[in-house]
């Protein structure tokens, strides 16, 4: 029996795999077994009702996708009243993602969702799809420290700060979030990008720019997750291009205590469960008793690997 459980950001998770915000919802309940997940993470909600961005809202690119969904939201009240209670029928803890455009509204919303049935709050201080050329609280350490501190005072629930990969110094932002009182870091949101239809000469997205996600971003986000895991002492949750157990293992090896799977679920509806099954299988095949033993196990003893070295050779001769 492999032990996949991890403690992460104030929660005890049965396994380190959870959905990424905006790619998961109750609609999937009849598609895969919700009981299997390490946690639930809901689509970001905002204080009040919103329509979201113009269509086209998504566009595919090599090995990934752009999205400018924006944050269509029924508002906090409807969410607290209609959605949160429905998750109580399953065991995994519920993480609610929130966002707002002002510290006050943000704090107010944090208070509003600090209700029974919610295990932790993921603060989306990084959504690059809103106006302001993609800027966000998490672009700078100072603004990050401030908003996290503000939200820390607004709720007793564990706070997960979701960072933006568009920041120049993610490690500094990670430290700032920790100083502000975050219990965990989610690294990271989508990378601001765009594409153009050369026939029509129009942007492929109605919103011109959008967030890049999927396998294409993995090497970049993995680097940031590694930098954050070294810079901060609170747990880092890796999120970016994870589609397989192998991808998840890369994030765990560089120091993440959990991972989120997003875009992959659009290609393979059961990706989350597949990643969990294959993680367990990898552990079994490699004699790993506890997934904890994989976390942060990156081997930096860089022996210059020799294409002709006799070790490499024995493998090939």
């Amino acid at each position, binding site marked *: 029996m492999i032990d996949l459980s991890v403690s992460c950001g104030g929660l005890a998770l049965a396994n380190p795999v959870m959905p990424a915000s*905006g*790619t*998961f*919802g109750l*609609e*999937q309940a*009849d*598609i895969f077994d919700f009981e299997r997940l390490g946690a639930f993470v809901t*689509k970001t909600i905002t204080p009040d009702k919103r*329509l*979201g961005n113009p*269509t*086209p*809202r*998504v566009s*595919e*690119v*090599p*090995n*990934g*996708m752009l*999205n400018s*969904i924006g944050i*269509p939201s029924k508002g906090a009240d409807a969410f607290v009243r209609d959605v949160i209670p429905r998750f109580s029928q399953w065991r995994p803890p519920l993480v609610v993602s929130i966002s707002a455009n002002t510290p006050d509204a943000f704090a107010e919303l944090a208070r509003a969702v600090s209700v029974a049935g919610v295990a932790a709050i993921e603060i989306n201080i990084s959504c690059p799809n809103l106006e302001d050329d993609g800027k966000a609280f998490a672009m700078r350490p100072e603004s990050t420290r401030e908003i996290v501190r503000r939200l820390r005072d607004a709720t007793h629930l564990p706070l997960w700060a979701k960072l933006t990969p568009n920041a120049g110094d993610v490690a500094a932002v990670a430290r700032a979030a920790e100083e502000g009182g975050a219990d965990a870091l989610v690294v990271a949101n989508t990378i601001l990008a765009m594409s153009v239809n050369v026939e029509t000469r129009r942007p492929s997205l109605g919103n011109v720019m959008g967030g890049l996600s*999927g396998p294409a971003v993995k090497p970049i986000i993995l680097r940031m997750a590694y930098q954050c895991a070294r810079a901060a002492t609170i747990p880092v949750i890796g999120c970016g291009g994870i589609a397989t157990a192998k991808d998840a293992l890369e994030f765990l090896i560089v120091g993440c205590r959990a991972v989120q799977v997003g875009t992959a*679920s*659009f*290609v*393979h*509806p*059961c990706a989350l469960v597949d990643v969990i099954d294959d993680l367990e299988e990898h552990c079994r095949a490699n004699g790993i008793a506890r997934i904890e033993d994989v976390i942060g196990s990156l081997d930096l003893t860089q022996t210059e690997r020799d294409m002709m070295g006799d070790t490499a050779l024995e493998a090939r001769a």
Partner: protein
Amino acid sequence: MIIPMLDPDVASPAAPPRPLEVEAVVREHVAVNDEYRYLSLDLPEGAPHARPGQFYHLLCPGGDGLEPFFRRPMSVYRIEPERNRVGFLYKVTGTGTAAMARLWPGDGFNIFGPLGIGFTLPEAKAPIVLLGRGVGLATMGPLVPFARANGHRVTAILSARAPDLVMSVEEMRAAGADVLTVTDAEGTSAVPHVEGLLEDLVAQGRCAALYVCGSSRLTRLAQAVAARHDLFGEVALEQQMACGVGVCFCCVRPFRENGETVHRRVCCEGPVFPLAEALA
């Protein structure tokens, strides 16, 4: 070649089937005309079956520079539960359908579905009229045998650029529909003429419900006629999709809901919607 769209003996299940990701196997893949191809798949044991108006999300195979990342939504054109098969009628328009067009009999094909909400029939075996153009015909196809099997008289008005591009005429006749065709080439597809046809059908008591797909021009016409005579009506809409199940909110389209404009997701709140509410 005639491709029946639904086996006569099929009645629709009460609750919509639970969607599954399955590895289907290509049984038949043929060109129907210069633009459209018909793909028939063998489903694995126990795979769920679709209802008219529902769709599958297809994982088109990459390779040779064609690398579709998203799945592609396709309406079911032919539903064969007892043979455990499903058929699609599609047009090659870009990367995904071009990749799809390379499939050979025997190839595996990963499909996810059935998804979405299909067509509903009016009360009391009331006669219905189908109005479709382009790929819209593929979506409406199975509605004919479904309605006939449930005792409704069916009239289909099929629109296309040219006579040789009107599809499913024989299929729909074989399924028991009265079929009228209108084309740009013959100058019969213009809105005023089609409106005349509809009014005649209403007058003849052959149009208690209207179903439209494939053109916003025809959708607006159908909305006008339905409103004028207070007819039941549905429209099947299209929008780009990512998840296909309602979580990503990329597939929204605008609707009129008691006065205000709201967004609805084509993948899970549709693709079939009440005719009156769509902002076409």
